[in-house]
């Protein structure tokens, strides 16, 4: 169990990470490691501390104590270095509705410092991969939700980060689109990109390589979905969750 946190094979390595807001402890000394290419599920009810934890890992929030190494850099000591190494997609899909598809890609490519010469081919490749050739010049605001979601995911990875954080990326999307989205996640994972995902759809937890379940700021369980179910002697992640949360 005890693994060295500075080990290079881990893309995300967290030890005793804690965040306090006054007397309230939102995240209470969580520790875990994520390996390359893993799809790491981060589950928990609203207010369990998922978002706070993700904010610390992405440099939006300063940890009160503990350490977190993301893509080889300490989020406390080198937050600016970390930022170049991670992708982030929020639950609102965070694209600009009044920009065209290719303009959104170009903007984020520019923000992440991709050289101008490469941006053009990057845009073409991305649009090609997504199968959005005929939507290239459409405003993002006019796209169906499913396409927006796919584009947002692709844009979050425009700078080929080793790890991408997805904060409830499938909320408000229909099951078929969710299914397609998970195919994209698998593809990314196959390419060696580590995917860190929070969700409140518990059936999605089954698709993760490993899933952690947070309750009241602590990680109650962390394992592969199969093991989690075995350990508690239940059939679905839903039941795992209920058992742990009522714990």
């Amino acid at each position, binding site marked *: 169990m005890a693994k060295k946190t500075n080990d290079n094979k881990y893309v995300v390595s967290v030890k005793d990470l804690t965040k306090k807001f006054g007397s309230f402890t939102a995240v209470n000394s969580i520790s875990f490691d994520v390996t390359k290419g893993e799809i790491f599920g981060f589950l928990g009810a609203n207010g369990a501390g998922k978002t706070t934890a993700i904010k610390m890992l992405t440099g939006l929030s300063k940890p009160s104590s503990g350490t977190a190494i993301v893509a080889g850099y300490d989020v406390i000591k080198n937050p600016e270095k970390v930022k170049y190494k991670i992708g982030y997609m929020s639950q*609102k899909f965070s694209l*600009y509705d009044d920009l065209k598809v290719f*303009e959104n890609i170009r903007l984020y490519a*520019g923000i*992440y410092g991709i050289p101008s010469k490469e941006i053009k081919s990057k845009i073409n490749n991305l649009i090609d991969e997504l199968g959005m050739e005929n939507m290239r010049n459409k405003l993002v605001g006019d796209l169906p939700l499913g396409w927006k979601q796919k584009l947002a995911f692709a844009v979050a990875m425009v700078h080929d980060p080793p790890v991408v954080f997805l904060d409830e990326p499938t909320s408000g999307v229909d099951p078929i689109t969710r299914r397609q989205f998970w195919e994209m996640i698998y593809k990314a994972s196959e390419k060696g990109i580590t995917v860190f995902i929070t969700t409140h759809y518990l059936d999605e937890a089954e698709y993760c390589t490993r899933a952690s379940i947070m309750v009241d700021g602590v990680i109650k369980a962390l394992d592969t979905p199969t093991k989690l179910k075995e350990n508690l002697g239940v059939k679905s992640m839903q039941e795992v969750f209920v058992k742990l949360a009522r714990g």
Partner: protein
Amino acid sequence: MKAFWAFIKKEYYHIIRDPRSLLILIGMPIIQVILFGFAITNEIVDAKISILDKSKDQITQEISNKILSSKYFLLSEYLESAEQIEGSFRKGKIKLALVFEEKFAEKFNRKERPSIQIITDATDPNTAATLTNYINKILLDYQNEISISTIAPKGIEVITRMEYNPQLKGVYLFVPGTIVIILMLISAMMTSISIAREKEKGTMEVLLVSPLKPFMIIAGKVIPYIALSLINALTILLLGVFVFGLPIRGDYFLLLFEITLFIITSLSLGIFISTLVKTQQEALLISLMGLMLPTIILSGFIYPIESMPRILQYISHVIPAKWFLIMIRNIMIKGVEISYILKETLILLGMTLVLMILSIKKFKIRLE
């Protein structure tokens, strides 16, 4: 730097692809100047008046002619009795009635000081006061003319000169005022709304996770609005000069410098507001109620600050527009140098600094 440029470009698209903001940004200044210029003027011409001349002598005739030949007054009717005055007003035909007492010329020649009664419709107090002033002025002129030709007058002669704006033109007042309002609107309101939009849509979160530094994000959002504000200020100035004949007596560079300073003050206000709010609606509401209204009412643009209750006068001190208005009027109309408006310049600089520091603090707390 390239990232920053990409970001500015995006802001430019936001502006040109939103017809509503485009209308506010481009149409508003022009419409405002034209409206203020042609519709809102303090000068009253062709006001209808009635005259009740109980004396009907040479002097009353001369005075009446003098009044009616000015461009300010038109004769509605000659009245026969005092009872008709009320009716004349009631019908809404006239703004003012003039009553000469009996034996006017006789008394005048005997130096008994005959009297003229001026009755005005004070339902609109400003108009009433202005018209009374016009009549007084004409009467004074007439007296002086006669005095010179007959006997040297005794007593004090009052010579009034309206310095810097001898024709009392309204443009002198409203062009600087319009610049203030437009700059406030664009710099403070539009930026606070556009930053609030990023928060509302969740894109701010993504930007904060990106390698763009928070300062760059804010600067990137603000720079296009600085450019727009400057263009608008220049448009208004040009309209003022070429359409309404406003002078710019001071140094152009000083004027431009103070305008830029005020733009930056307004922008920091907008940024500060955006740190307080979560949605565009809130930003709009706070900007309108907390900025536009006080700016219009308390800056001295429409109502003179000197005539306000003491408490409002104190409040007006914290309104940046008040100081800017003093400066811009002084530069354009009086042509003063920077040393005369140093205090106001420093006050604006101070306000900007305080707002920036507050915004940065607020921004950091949010990130914690």
